[in-house]
């Protein structure tokens, strides 16, 4: 049975790969050309960097839901737990701790830069949040930050703040006309507001994914 399944999967996989390769090689040009459209509308998007414009304006709806996905993953992790006490941090190299202490401001600064840069060049809330999270992970590894168990109220607020802001903006704009239709004048500000909130929350969430897990069943 297992052998059969294995060979079946291999055969299907190979033929699928072959078919896809053939398909890709014979593709004509696409009928719709979005980069041009993006460039055309970039001016009204409130940001200068096209990826950020797509991410937070043109396809901001995807992003909103995506944040929800992250939050949801965290939530599910929380359901698995059930309030076990965090494991005591193992004895860690003091050198590492020192390094971590010194790195912390740098990390925060990097995150802030990425956030700000996102408006006109590569960077943005996700990257910034990831950097923040990486910092948190680093701190934990250095024994400076305990693993998390059930989140307290403030932490919960921090976790959802970015999403709530995003949601509030969406709702407010919906009241004005359409979901996430930023008035051109306010677009930049609103996007920045959202990104700021997201940076914080994404950092916490991504960190949480690690910190909640690691404290789980050590």
């Amino acid at each position, binding site marked *: 049975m297992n052998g059969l399944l294995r060979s079946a999967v291999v055969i299907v996989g190979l033929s699928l790969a072959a078919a896809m390769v053939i398909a890709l090689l014979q593709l004509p040009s696409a009928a719709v050309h979005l980069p041009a459209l993006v460039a055309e509308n970039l001016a009204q998007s409130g940001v200068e960097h096209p990826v*950020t414009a797509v991410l937070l304006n043109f396809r901001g709806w995807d992003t909103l839901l995506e944040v929800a996905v992250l939050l949801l993953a965290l939530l599910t992790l929380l359901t698995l737990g059930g309030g076990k006490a965090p494991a005591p941090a193992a004895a860690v190299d003091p050198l590492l701790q020192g390094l971590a202490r010194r790195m912390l401001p740098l990390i925060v600064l990097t995150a802030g830069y990425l956030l700000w840069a996102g408006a006109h060049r*590569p*960077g943005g809330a*996700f*990257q910034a949040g*990831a950097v923040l999270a990486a910092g948190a992970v680093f701190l934990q590894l250095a024994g400076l930050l305990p693993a998390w168990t059930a989140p307290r109220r403030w932490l919960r607020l921090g976790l959802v703040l970015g999403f709530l802001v995003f949601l509030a903006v969406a709702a407010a704009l919906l009241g004005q006309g359409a979901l996430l239709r930023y008035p051109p004048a306010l677009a930049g500000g609103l996007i920045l507001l959202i990104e700021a909130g997201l940076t914080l929350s994404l950092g916490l969430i*991504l960190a949480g*994914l690690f910190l909640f*897990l690691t404290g789980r*069943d050590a």
Partner: protein
Amino acid sequence: MNLAFDLLLILALSWSAWRSLATPDLTRAVVMFIVFGLLMALAWARLGAPDIALAEAAIGAGLTGALLLDALGALQARRGEKKEDA
């Protein structure tokens, strides 16, 4: 030159992916996966997508790697060094 680099990168990508799945040692597999993530970041850069490259490095390789390593520790803590890979 570029093409050669691209081909090499793709080869490396494929190899690291294959190793991360096929190598019998789980720890090594995870490491290979982190390597794979970093190579992916390179690939994104080659595709003119620095945003993704950044994200891939931070999230795909970094955070995922950390998660994997941590999980690996947890899973192996209990079972000793026994690999269950069949």
